[in-house]
Structures are given as C-alpha cells and as structure tokens.
C-alpha cells in the first residue's frame, strides 16, 4: 500500500516537473482518441450501408412503356425459368409511383410531375444473394452492355453497381483515415515515450540513488510506467468528454433529420462500448509508449 502511494507520488511529481512535454503528450492523445472516436462510427455506418445494399436479393428490370401484356407475361415466364430465381414480381408504373410517394417526405415533388416518369418493371428475387450475379448474367448473357434476353427490357436498376460505388468511396476514405489515425497513434506513442524519456533524464539522479541503495528494477520503473499511463488516462478522459459533448450537442439533434446518423445509433456499437474501446486504447498506447522507452533508455 505504502509502495503504491510512493509510486503515484513520484509519478505525479515528475509530471508536474515536466509540465510542457506532459501537456504535449496529453493533447496528442486527446486528438488521436477524438479522431478515433469519430472514425469508428463513420466506418461502421459506411460499412453497414454498403452491406445493406449488397444484401438485397433482388434486381429490378425496367420495361419499355410500349410492351404489350402478352410480351410482359412471356417475359415473366422466361425469367421464372432462370435457375436460382425465387420470385418474379411485376411492379406497374402506378405501383412504383405510389411506393415513391410513400418514401418521400415532400409529396409535392411527385404531384408537380403531372405525368408518371417511372417505368413498369420486374423485380427478380434470387434464392441467395450470392446467386444474384448468375441471375443477372442469365438476363444479360453478353454482359450489362450487351443485349438482354428480351427486347422489352430497357435497363436494369443495378444495385450491385451502387453498392460497389459506395464501397469504392468508403474504401478510399478508409485508407486515408486509417493512415491519418495510424500516424496519430504513432505520434502519441512517440510523445508519451518522449515525456518518459525526459522524465528519466530529469530524474537520473533519483534513478542513480535508487540503484545505489538497492531498489529493484521494477521499483525504479513503476513510477515512470504510471506517469505514462496517467498521460493516457487524462488524454483519454478528456477526449471522451469532448466526444460526449459533441454527441449530445451536434450528432443527436441532427440524427433526427439525417438518416445516416440515425442508422448509426441502431446498427452500430453503442456509445458506452465505444467509450470503453477508446479508453482502453489510450491506456494501451501510453503503456506501450512508456514501456518501450523504459526498455531503451532506463538501464537498471
């Protein structure tokens, strides 16, 4: 017990003595953790969106307006004959417009159109999301640019393409943000390490005396370790406070009107879990930072 008090006293004494570098390390940790705290939900939301699109089992094929009922009926048969097709549903122009109406908040947009621009379409469901590509290939044997199996099909609404696009954008975003985060983690690791190194330097006389009177290796190391962990702890707490303030003042009011933000609340990990991860990460990083520095610079 007395020992633990001693270790903390020594660690806090050292932090006070090296105010500026300690502060630099804390601020870097705060920035890193805040950034991580924003990136994790963003990644998750993006990932969730693209998977949501991809997981839909159906492809829609728009039909030309001049197709006759007989042509439509025979195409339906033909589509149903394709392997892996589970269900083929005809969606008429009017039905499509009604669906659109119900999805839009501002109904006036539809009413101002006067005519119905939406085509008749077939919604083709595959028995498995993985077989969707095979189904599409059966409808367009020569690839999406080629001719389809029926002259009345005008074009497919390719959800696969849109999910690919979402993925392209998010993966580019991911790479950039991951690099930034990695650099920031590295920076805070090095700054924590630097703080400890400076502390070792300013306390070299203490270290020398401790060695001479026979303090054990870990007795000498503990105060420095604690010093590093305190940096991580304070940095992590400040960052979480900032994130929490940001959440209640910016994200929560906005999520009522912006769907993507709302989605994040339900499908991705909750705020307490995020806080726990961030907190653990900041302590982990600072422990590694001080541990590595002690290994290199504190020969005891």
């Amino acid at each position, binding site marked *: 017990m007395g020992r633990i008090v001693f270790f903390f006293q020594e660690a806090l004494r050292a932090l006070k003595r090296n105010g500026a570098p300690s502060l630099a390390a804390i601020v870097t940790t705060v920035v890193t953790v805040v950034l991580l705290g924003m990136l994790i939900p963003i990644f998750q939301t993006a990932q969730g969106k693209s998977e949501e699109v991809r997981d839909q089992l159906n492809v829609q094929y728009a039909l030309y307006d001049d197709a006759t009922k007989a042509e439509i009926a025979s195409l339906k048969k033909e589509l149903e004959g394709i392997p892996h097709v589970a269900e083929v549903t005809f969606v008429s122009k009017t039905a499509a417009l009604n669906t659109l109406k119900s999805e839009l908040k501002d109904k006036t947009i539809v009413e101002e159109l006067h005519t119905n621009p939406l085509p008749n379409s077939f919604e083709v469901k595959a028995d498995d999301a993985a077989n969707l590509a095979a189904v599409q290939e059966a409808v367009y044997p020569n690839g999406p640019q080629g001719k389809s199996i029926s002259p009345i099909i005008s074009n497919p609404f390719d959800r696969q393409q849109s999910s690919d696009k979402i993925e392209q954008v998010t993966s580019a975003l991911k790479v950039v943000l991951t690099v930034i985060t990695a650099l920031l983690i590295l920076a805070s690791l090095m700054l924590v390490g630097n703080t400890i190194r400076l502390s070792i330097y300013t306390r070299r006389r203490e270290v020398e005396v401790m060695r001479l*009177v026979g*303090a054990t290796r870990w007795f000498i190391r503990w105060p420095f370790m604690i010093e590093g962990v305190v940096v991580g702890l304070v940095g992590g707490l400040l960052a979480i406070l900032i994130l929490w303030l940001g959440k209640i003042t910016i994200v929560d009011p906005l999520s009522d009107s912006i769907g993507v933000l709302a989605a994040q609340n339900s499908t991705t990990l909750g705020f307490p879990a995020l806080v726990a991860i961030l907190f653990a990460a900041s302590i982990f990083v600072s422990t590694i930072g001080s541990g590595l520095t002690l290994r290199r610079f504190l020969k005891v």
Partner: protein
Amino acid sequence: MALRKKKDHGSEEPRRPRGRRAPIIELNDVTKVYPGGHMALDRVNLAIGRGEFVFLVGPTGCGKSTLIKMLIRELAASEGSVKIAGRDIGKLSEKKIPQLRRNIGTVFQDFKLLPDRTVYDNVAYALQVIGASRAEIREQVPQTLRLVGLSTKIHSYPDELSGGEQQRVSVARAFVNHPPLLLADEPSGNLDPVTSIGIMQLLYRINKAGTTVVVVTHDREMVDNMRRRVIELYEGRVVRDEVSGGYTEESTTEFGLRMQAGMGVGPDGDTRTNGHSDHDHLS
C-alpha cells in the same frame, strides 16, 4: 543474503579476530579491461576483513573507482573473482544485485543528494525505495541523523547546507539501513581539511560500531597520518598493502586529534564537526 549481522550497531560488540569468517571483501586475480582495451585493474588480489577500516589510495586513473564499481556490481570483472562475504558476486543474477547493494552503503565525492527533498526525505528515500515500512523509516531516519550530527537540520534542503553537512547527509543515507559494509569514494574530495576530518571521524565512528569501512582517496599524505591499513593502487596493480599497528583501539576523539595534528589544523577549526562527537554513545 547472509551478509548482514544481527542488529549489533551501537552495542559495542568486540571486533572479531580476522580470518575466522570469510573476509567481507576478497579479490582474487581480478582484471578489468574496458571495451576500448584499457586495462583498469591488473590481477588484483586483496582481502579485507570484517570491521576493518581501510584506505584505498592512488593517483587518478589508477583503478580505484573501477574497484569500487566492481564491489557494487556496477561493473563486472573481466577475469578473476570478486567475493563479498564469501560470495562470488560475479555470479549473481541481475535480480540479486539490488539485494547486494542493500548491504553496501556508498558515499561519493559529489554527495548525490536529491535537491528537491529535505534532509529527512533524502535519508528516508533510501529506506522507501527498498520497501521499508513507515514505522521503520520514522525510527531509523532521526536516529541516523542524530548519529551524523544533523538533528537540527532535518527540514533543510541540500542547497541550504554546507558541503560538510551535505556529505553527512549522504553518509546518513548510506548508513540508515545499517549495512555491514560502507564504501566512501573520495568522501572529502570537495571539502576543506577541517571538514574532511569531521567526515573521517564520522566514518571512523561508524566503523567502531562494527561496519567495515573502505575509504578511497587520492590524498596520500592524509592516509600516512592516519596509521590505518592502506592499500595503494598504481596503474591497476596493488603496489602497497600495509597495516600500521598500534592505533586500532583508539577513541574517535583520539583519532580526530591525531588527524588534526597530522594535517596541521587546530582542534577549534570547526565546531560543527567536533562539538558533538566526543561524547557520542558509540565512541
């Protein structure tokens, strides 16, 4: 480690005849070659018995400091064996080294005090870092400070003290856990002659309480007046090892007076170092 005797400090235990137990320090053919190729010690053989007061002298660069560093396993011998209380410390594992150092007090020319701590805290620090209990600290620290004559300055900071007083603090720190062996590397190197005598008297008093004391100095003249055992190193070899008999049982006062006479300084030169020592319970 079986190094430490039962707490016998202050109990005036008669000195043991040499040779009965293993000598506290024993060097056999110790050679130290630094990585650059410089040979600091060249086949040194010596033995120091328990309770001895020994001077180690020689010019700068003769290997004195290397020898001291070896005794606390700051350095390892290139060849030969260094034994402390019969135990080859070259074979100690890293983990056992702190235990060795707890049994050896060290005093240096530059005091090595912590400037932002009081006298009391500086001495207590030595006990804190070896995990002593609070009760132990509260008992030992004032007692040791009384021994070195700094009872009135326990709340002063090192920069408020004279050089001699600072060295007394460092002696107190080295002795606070009553190690059986005390090494002093040029303890009076930064001090004037009168203050030096005070420090020597203090070390002598500690020696009389049963602790083996080894004092390193480059001041050959002073040791000639001491009439103690003197080991002289020159270019890494022992060139002289002699015991001047006849003075082993003198009191601290006699010791101090003789030193003053030998160094040509009067007994009233420094009341701080002399005032309390004469009737100390240890002398």
